[in-house]
């Protein structure tokens, strides 16, 4: 009996020590935030300055629905808008809505571009929406968003 008691206690002890450190680690790790952390709402407001933003079918986003690797997610934004001197796309902003710093890139175009399109690759920390905010030369703001499922996060 004694030996059996001892063994069972030993087993319990091992189990406890095995469980406790992993639990404490999980509790101690808050969402990591970088030096440039900014929420999606604040980032959009900083760009628009409080002006209304219209969800538009003119803005086309090409993002994979499921990204196996969050470190490399290709994003392409195309805008159905002419690029003439009087009417052109001024800027394209790309946001990852749940990253620490939601801002990815701000692209300022000119009529010399000929076509309003921009493509790059971004990092995504978790499953989230990727949003594009487009500023036209007449001061209007258009937006579009698409959700991306991320299997392995690519931040940190």
């Amino acid at each position, binding site marked *: 009996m004694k030996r059996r008691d001892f063994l069972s206690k030993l087993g319990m002890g091992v189990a406890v020590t095995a469980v406790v450190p992993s639990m404490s680690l999980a509790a101690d790790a808050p969402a990591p935030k970088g030096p440039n952390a900014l929420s999606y709402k604040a980032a959009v407001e900083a760009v628009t300055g409080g002006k209304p933003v219209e969800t538009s079918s003119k803005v086309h986003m090409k993002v994979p629905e499921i990204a196996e690797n969050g470190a490399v997610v290709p994003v392409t934004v195309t805008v159905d808008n002419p690029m003439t001197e009087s009417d052109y796309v001024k800027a394209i902003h790309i946001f990852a809505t749940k990253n620490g710093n939601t801002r990815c*890139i701000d692209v300022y175009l*000119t009529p010399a571009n000929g076509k309003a399109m921009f493509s790059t690759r971004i*990092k995504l920390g978790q499953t989230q929406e990727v949003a594009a905010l487009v500023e036209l030369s007449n001061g209007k703001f258009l937006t579009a968003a698409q959700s991306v499922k991320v299997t392995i996060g690519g931040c940190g």
Partner: protein
Amino acid sequence: MGKRKSLIKIKPKKYKDGEIVKVSFMVMHPMETGMRKDKKTKKLIPALYINNVKFEYNGKVITTMKVWESLSVNPVFTTYMKVNGKGKLKVTFTDSSGEVNEKTKKIKPKG
């Protein structure tokens, strides 16, 4: 002036004057977010990412970009450009450490 490897690609390879071509600009850059830990020393790796990218065609700025750390390692920037005579396409990019790099490509329209 730094020595980052970079590359400018133009598609299609043969183009005429006045044509709209696709311009891709690639850089070899680690794009550290400042949140990643070194696996051996368990210390945070300091942030190092590209800040600004500027496309200039014959001295005229055609596209500027403000970049944050959430772009992938070795980022690619693709956009379109209207060919307007012979000249040079110059891309200047700045690091968060202040390092400035440059890359130029000759633009030679045919026909």
